[in-house]
Each structure stands twice: as structure tokens, then as C-alpha cells.
């Protein structure tokens, strides 16, 4: 059915049958649309409004004032918030490359033909559907002072065994790696789906031409799955910034401030310090950063994505 006919509909006189059809259509979608406006539409618009107001204590709306860019100026002047922004950057800069390379590598190897393919596939996917908080309890024990990781380091004669989640230096990278472990299943399966769509003849032709394994991957396989890489890159960058649950479950921002990233900072500003508008401004900046990165990727894709 073409869109053009549709657009013309309201101008023409509708027959009774068409009217009845349209009415049924509205009846089907209206309940959803109302709920969508209440729980997504209004919150999204108010997120913008809040950032330019002076709301405190979340729901105290008297003495409301438009303060312009004050919240944003304050944000960029705050050392604490800038440090959190820096940690988010570090988080993303580790998370995105690691998850991209590992998920492709695993999918590539699995696709090359192994026994127990389905079992291995499920094993890698399992962390994705598990509850982060429950899993965090296990990791805290495994990586804790009496856990196997500590004992293993001692066993190998490491002089200062590290407690990764309690170390100022290692806590952030550790959290990132656990988060990679948790989410890799989705990227891995998506890659696997894409790899299964790469024509075998293409790879075989390269083989016959004497291309090395690395050349085959670089010149045949990677270009063939580049749309998937593009999609996963964008979604992984977004995931890497929405990391509140991972951090809160594993370290709650500790030790010190070493794992306070923007998502944690925003929630604290809003729900512990009750600076609603200031928190909204921070969230809006994060949204803008994601948008800018996505747009840059969108224009950059022409150079490396083959459709």
C-alpha cells in the first residue's frame, strides 16, 4: 500500500466504509499512543525544560524560574562532574574496542566450524540474560580478599596481589571488563548471524588466490559484515554510557570516586543531592554527546560500510 494514497485521504471525501476502517484503526492504536505520550513523550520534552529551570527536590515546583544556561555553565565548571565525564570516556574507550574485537573474534572462530557449536553459543550468550545485581554478588566474592582470584595471584607469587574491585587503579577497568562479559552475547550472536550470511564462495575464491588467513578476514569477511559492525558500534557506544546498573551493582562508585561515571553522577545529583534541574542538564549533555557521535558515524559510514 502506498504512502501517497494515504496522504491524500484526508482531503478527499471518505466513503462510509473507509471511515469505519479509519475509526477501527484509531481504536486499535489510541490506548498505546496515550500511554506513549504519558511515559515517553512528556518525559522527553520535560527533560529539556527541566534543564533550563531551577527545580530542586524533584517534585517541588513552586518558585519555578527560568535560569537559562546556568545549569550547563555550572556543570562544565564543576571539577567533580568533569572527572565523572572523563571516567565515562575511559569506560567507553575500553568497552567499545574490547567488545567489538572479542565478539567478532569469537563469532568468526565459532563460524569456522567447531564441534558443540550450539552449546558454546549458548554458553557465551548466557551472561546477557542474567541479572547483573545477582551476578555482581558472585563477582564480589570471586574477586574479593578470600576469593580464588586473590589466591591465584598469591600462588603465582605476585607480591602485591590486587583486589580488583577495591583498588583505586583497577576498579574502573575491572567493571568495564565485567560489563563486556555481561553484554558480549548479544554482539556475538549478531555477528554470528551476519557471518552466516557471508557467501562461502567469496572466501574460497580468496583462498584460491592465495590470500592469507589475515588477508581473507581483512579484505573479504570484514567488508562483508561491515553493516553489522556499523550497527553494533553505535549500539555499543550507547550501551557503554548507560552503565548505571553495572556500576551500582559492583562498586557503587567506590573506591573513593574511582568509578563514579556520568550515569552515577546524574542519579546522585538528582536523588541524593536533590538538584533535579542540574541533573537534567547533565543528562541532556550526555544525550547530546551520543547524538553527535551517532551523526558523525552516520556520515563516516560511507567510507567503510558496504551495503
Amino acid at each position: 500500500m502506498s504512502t501517497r494514497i494515504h496522504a491524500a485521504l484526508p482531503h478527499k471525501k471518505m466513503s462510509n466504509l473507509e471511515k469505519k476502517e479509519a475509526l477501527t484503526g484509531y481504536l486499535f492504536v489510541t490506548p498505546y499512543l496515550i500511554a506513549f505520550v504519558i511515559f515517553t513523550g512528556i518525559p522527553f520534552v520535560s527533560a529539556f525544560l527541566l534543564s533550563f529551570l531551577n527545580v530542586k527536590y524533584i517534585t517541588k515546583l513552586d518558585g519555578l524560574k527560568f535560569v537559562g544556561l546556568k545549569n550547563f555553565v555550572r556543570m562544565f565548571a564543576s571539577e567533580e562532574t568533569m572527572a565523572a565525564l572523563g571516567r565515562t570516556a575511559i569506560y567507553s574507550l575500553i568497552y567499545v574496542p574490547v567488545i567489538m574485537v572479542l565478539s567478532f573474534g569469537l563469532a568468526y572462530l565459532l563460524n569456522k566450524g567447531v564441534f558443540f557449536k550450539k552449546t558454546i553459543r549458548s554458553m557465551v550468550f548466557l551472561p546477557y540474560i542474567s541479572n547483573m545485581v545477582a551476578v555482581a554478588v558472585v563477582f564480589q566474592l570471586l574477586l574479593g580478599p578470600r576469593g580464588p582470584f586473590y589466591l591465584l595471584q598469591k600462588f603465582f607469587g605476585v607480591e602485591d596481589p590486587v583486589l580488583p574491585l577495591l583498588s583505586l587503579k583497577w576498579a574502573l577497568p575491572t567493571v568495564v571488563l565485567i560489563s563486556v562479559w555481561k553484554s558480549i552475547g548479544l554482539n556475538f550472536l549478531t555477528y554470528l548471524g551476519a557471518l552466516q550470511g557471508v557467501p562461502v564462495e567469496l572466501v574460497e575464491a580468496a583462498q584460491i588466490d592465495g590470500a592469507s588467513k589475515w588477508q581473507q578476514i581483512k579484505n573479504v569477511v570484514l567488508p562483508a559484515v561491515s553493516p553489522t559492525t556499523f550497527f553494533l558500534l553505535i549500539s555499543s557506544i550507547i550501551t557503554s554510557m548507560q552503565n548505571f546498573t553495572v556500576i551500582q551493582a559492583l562498586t557503587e562508585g567506590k573506591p573513593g570516586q574511582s568509578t563514579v561515571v556520568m550515569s552515577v553522577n546524574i542519579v546522585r545529583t538528582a536523588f541524593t543531592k536533590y538538584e533535579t534541574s542540574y541533573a537534567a542538564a547533565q543528562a541532556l549533555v550526555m544525550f547530546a554527546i551520543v547524538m553527535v557521535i551517532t551523526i558523525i558515524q552516520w556520515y563516516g559510514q560511507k567510507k567503510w560500510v558496504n551495503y
Partner: protein
Amino acid sequence: MNLRKRERIGKWVLTIVMLVLGVLCIYPFLFMIASTFKPSGDVLSTPLQLIPKNFTLMNIETLFNNEYYNFGDWYWNTIVMTGITLLLKLFIITITAYGFAKIRFPGRDAIFLVLLAGLMIPGDIMIMPRYIIFKNLGILNTMWSLILPAAVDVYFVFLLRQAFVAIPDSISEAARIDGCSHFTIYRRMILPLAKPSITTMLLFSFVWSWNDYMGPYLYISDLNKQMLSVGIKLFAAGQAQDYGAQMAGATIVLVPVIVAFFFCQRYFIEGVTSGAVKG
């Protein structure tokens, strides 16, 4: 012959490497499940035993039967919350998707485009406005503050619309001519035909609702109304020395999802590999 043998050996080597990586992925789960049935003192014993030497059910008993934490309440709350979310989604998402896929009405495509734009909105930006809205609707500190936003998941409206569009119009149009109403076609023809897509939606929705932490953490304040994700953290912090009980807690939280995964692997995995679920 020699080549084939070498290939076989290569395949086995790769298999072993991948199996080791796979076991590494599920090691925390193995450790957790094994520890559930060990006395706390044995949990961190070296060398690690995967099969409990002193089998016990004491930890599960501690979980549901202790003075401080109502693990049972949290469990029940999470079951009810997830159950209502799924029922609501099963109805509202499918009927909306049908409306956008099979019924002609003015403005349909424009409205759908606006919904699609909603896919781009990151959840983090809406946490405070939603708090204000929940408060005004009087659903703050109730499970409805978790259920209702989950029920308007745009993502699955989009997916199911795709699935419904793929079902040929000729089928529904023939039924229309025979005088069937849209609701009958939706219920008798489209829903049964799109069962795999709907199952995928229900499974992923189950996992997401069951595992949600941020929602209950921000919007539910009463301890007895809490959900498992928040509860397990409180419990683990409270029973800091009782490793066995902690692991039992983690296991019990994970069991429903793991069971669902074992029985419906096909839908989970095909949902992703076919490109249906992304994110």
C-alpha cells in the same frame, strides 16, 4: 587423506579453545550454583570443589526464613510485576502493531515515524521527569511505575509491525470480504501466524523486566514492595559473612531466567541472529 586428518585435528583444537572460553563465560554461574548447596565455610575452600562435599539446603532455608529480609515478598512482587507486564504487552503491543500494519487510517505513517524516533531516546534522560509523572499519577512506590513504562516499549511495536506486515495482506483481505472484523482477524489469524515473533517478544520482555534494577531502585521506596534486583543487593550486604546464603540468593534470582533460556533457546538465539532483537 592427510589433509583431511589435519583439518579434523584443527577442528578439535578450535573446539577445545572455544569450549574453554565458553566455560570461562559460565564459570561464575557454576561457582554460584555449587556454592548454594555448600555450608558457608566451604564456599571459598581451596581447591574449589564444583560438587559440594557437604551437601546442604541450609542456605535456601536462610534465604526465605530469616528475621531481617523478606526474600519471599520480593520474589512474589517480582513475579507479579513481570507477569502483569507480559500480559499487558501481549495485548497492547500486538494490537497496536496490528493497527499500524493492517488497518488504513489517515496519519498512520506519520504517527509511526514519530514512534520510531522514540527508539532513539535514551532511558537515562527520562528518569527525573518520569519520577514527577509517577508522583502525580499516584503510582510512585507501586509496581505500576515499573509496569506501565515497560508496556509502552516502542521497540517491540516496531518489530511486531514488521512481522505482521510480512504476513500477506491477501489473507486478511479475503477474511474482510467474508465479513470478519479486524479484531477477529487479529485474534484468529494474525496472532497465531506471528507466534514465533510474539514468543521472542515475551521472552526478552520477561528477562528485561525480571532483571531491571534501575526502575525499582529509583521508584520503589518501601522495603516490602521491593523487587528482587534491589533485594538481592540488600540481602548480600546484610549477610556479608554468609557466603553460602549470598550465593543461594543469587541462584534463586537467576533460576527462572536460566530455566526459560534452556527451554526456549531457539527463540532467544534466533531472535538475535535473525536481526530481530538488537539491544
